[in-house]
């Protein structure tokens, strides 16, 4: 019934790992061909693969893990999806229902463990409920503010000897759950008036534009108004990275011009973004002169940290479309003179400090150069799946994302080990696309066993390992705040990644000189059917800049190791 329901839901891939409590389900999988199961090497990877599938396609990903350790191994992946509002259905096996609560072999209270990190969860207590529960799980995961849903199924609920009436429901009705499908027209009208009256506006947009499929509307509105656009880490690609109106990412490692523009703005239009602490810096000093319009599907995100002057609860796409209509029909148009002055100011910021790093004469590579090369070699068109650390910030800053759903990273939870399984999930869905895993020698080792899965399913991911032989972001904080006491942030005894890749049956490359980089990278991406592990040695001492000064305002930044605003 589980497999049939998944098939009826239109599921193509499930990522998982078998175990005792799931044997009935795995047997059912064996006896059909519609739903393809991908066997990972660790359950965490199954959840990240399902998660990345959802990030790239917009549809809920599915993971299947057994009870006990299978379920607990999936917890990090569920939390990762929860923090970034990613639709995902995680089916966990459970011990037989009569054993629940008796500390049976491989028993764990998955409903309890996962409770704070799921949008909702179901426990199956009658086999005949399975189709309806699966239907509800997908409905809840994919609508409103998306999120992961856990379905916990005791082994006896899937027993093949029992037969039940099967009917997959066509629709779902839940009296306590009805996500909004449009915004309040009066609020949208008020917001549009305010938007048109602005003299120093900024459009600040986040992951809600990506998952809400509102990129086209955002671009249209931004063009009509000629206002600057900044994206959060989760929102990159929502607006084209090479566009003149794009002023970069904002926040802790945001661009100088984006953070300055936010600080001095008189109006912020926030779309599908949640004013989190990595964006706002010190809340009491946040954007002192700005009025705030906040569009979000989740009412609880509005005025959570920063009070909105005009809150609009609704899906980004529908609300922006309504705004476009109002702006188009309005007699009042933006104050061209004020906007021109505003752009002159932003361009001045841009030329003063925008997007620069220093290179020296040595052939030592800067990590930023590697990302810029990646952007060049792939024409800004690759799916970039990142791990967590300095390399993630460099990728966010220097890769020019021109399309949504191409930048795939663990923004909220910051999960090291996310990158490789994420790249696999994407590559599986888009076999012909260029998929890069931007990682570091720390993160990659957290899920390196998945190189084996890549071999089994021929996933030609390109691993861009920015090897600085240390946990770079930790080291950076230690440099800045702990007088360079590098407590446990460097890695002795790194493996030979080239040999390691080869041992798994892949291609390994070691690049140490910038002059070799372009040719090597082109060679790697030309190998369409091979996984290539590029172990790229970069400057060990590079820091990510700009970096906001803790508890300061948006504009308080370190720009280099010695220079501050």
């Amino acid at each position, binding site marked *: 019934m589980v497999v049939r329901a998944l098939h009826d839901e239109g599921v193509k891939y499930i990522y998982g790992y078998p175990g005792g409590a799931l044997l009935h389900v795995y047997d059912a999988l064996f006896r059909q061909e519609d739903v393809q199961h991908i066997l990972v090497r660790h359950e965490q990877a199954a959840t990240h693969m399902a998660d990345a599938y959802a990030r790239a396609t917009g549809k809920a990903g599915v993971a299947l893990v057994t009870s006990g350790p299978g379920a607990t191994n999936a917890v990090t992946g569920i939390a990762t999806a929860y923090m970034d509002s990613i639709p995902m259905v995680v089916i966990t096996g459970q011990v037989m229902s009569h054993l629940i609560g008796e500390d049976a072999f491989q028993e764990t209270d998955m*409903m*309890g463990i996962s*409770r*704070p990190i799921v*949008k*909702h*969860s179901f*426990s199956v*207590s009658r086999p005949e409920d399975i189709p309806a529960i699966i239907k509800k799980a997908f409905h*809840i995961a994919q609508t409103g503010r998306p999120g992961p849903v856990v379905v916990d199924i005791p082994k006896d609920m899937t027993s093949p000897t029992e037969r039940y009436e099967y009917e997959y429901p066509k629709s779902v009705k*839940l*009296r*306590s*759950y009805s996500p909004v499908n449009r915004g309040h027209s009066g609020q949208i009208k008020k917001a549009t008036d305010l938007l048109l009256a602005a003299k120093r506006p900024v459009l600040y947009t986040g992951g809600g534009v990506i998952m809400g499929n509102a990129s086209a509307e955002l671009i249209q509105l931004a063009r009509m108004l000629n206002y600057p656009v900044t994206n959060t880490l989760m929102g990159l690609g929502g607006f084209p990275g090479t566009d003149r109106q794009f002023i970069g990412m904002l926040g802790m490692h945001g661009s100088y011009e984006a953070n300055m523009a936010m600080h001095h703005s008189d109006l912020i239009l926030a779309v599908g973004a949640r004013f989190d602490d990595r964006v706002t810096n010190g809340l009491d000093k946040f954007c002192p002169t700005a009025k705030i319009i906040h569009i979000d599907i*989740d*009412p*609880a995100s509005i*005025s*959570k940290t920063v009070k909105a002057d005009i809150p609009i609860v609704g899906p980004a796409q529908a609300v922006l479309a309504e705004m476009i209509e109002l702006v188009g029909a309005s007699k009042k148009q933006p104050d061209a003179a004020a906007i021109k002055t505003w752009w002159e100011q932003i361009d001045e910021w841009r030329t003063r400090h925008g997007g620069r790093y220093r290179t020296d004469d040595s052939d030592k590579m800067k990590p930023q150069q590697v990302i810029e090369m990646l952007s060049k070699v792939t024409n800004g068109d690759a799916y970039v799946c990142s791990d967590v650390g300095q390399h993630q910030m460099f990728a966010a800053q220097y890769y020019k994302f021109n399309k949504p759903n191409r930048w795939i990273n663990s923004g909220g939870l910051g999960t090291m080990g996310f990158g490789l399984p994420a790249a696999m999930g994407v590559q599986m869905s888009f076999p012909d696309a260029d998929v890069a895993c931007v990682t570091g020698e720390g993160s990659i080792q957290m899920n390196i066993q998945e190189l084996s899965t890549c071999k089994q399913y021929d996933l030609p991911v390109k691993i861009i390992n920015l090897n600085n032989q240390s946990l770079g972001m930790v080291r950076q904080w230690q440099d800045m705040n702990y007088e360079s006491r590098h407590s446990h942030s460097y890695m002795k005894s790194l493996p030979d990644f080239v040999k390691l890749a080869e041992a798994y049956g892949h291609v390994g490359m070691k690049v140490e000189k910038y002059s070799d980089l372009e040719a090597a990278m082109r060679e790697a991406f030309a190998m369409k059917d091979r996984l290539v592990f590029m172990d790229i040695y970069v400057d060990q001492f590079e820091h990510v800049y700009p970096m906001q000064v803790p508890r300061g305002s948006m504009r308080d930044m370190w720009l280099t190791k010695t220079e501050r605003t």
Partner: protein
Amino acid sequence: MRHIISVLLENEPGALSRVVGLFSQRNYNIESLTVAPTDDATLSRLTVTTIGDDRVIEQITKHLNKLIDVVKVVDLTEGEHIERELMMIKLKASGAARAEIKRTADIFRGQIIDVTPSTYTVQLIGASDKLDAFISALGTANIMEVVRSGVSGIARGEKTLSP
């Protein structure tokens, strides 16, 4: 400020733990909590009293509304309402104290619901501050045990909380 929040909840396993978990997860405080089934067997009614400023209370109600098992949420303290709590209190009651306790209980319209030669158990129903006042009127010396039900509340007039 103290708020009384009333919640209609699906009568599903785990629903209560989601509500309680929300409060601990988001660092909201719970002063008291009551929960019991309603006339509709599919629904439970839960009353939670909590303390917080307007921003916190707004977040609490928003997050409660987000829970899939939560059907309706209302902050009773926003309007006219009645709150009641039940207390049973066991007291040492011998000598002169025995008569004094009886008098105090009468003043508060409490009932003595269990008697032994040396103890009284008094039942008192009212708003929480009335229960507090009774305890302080008795003084601590005679109190052996206190059990309180937590607050239940309902809106005045024709307003109802229904799915």
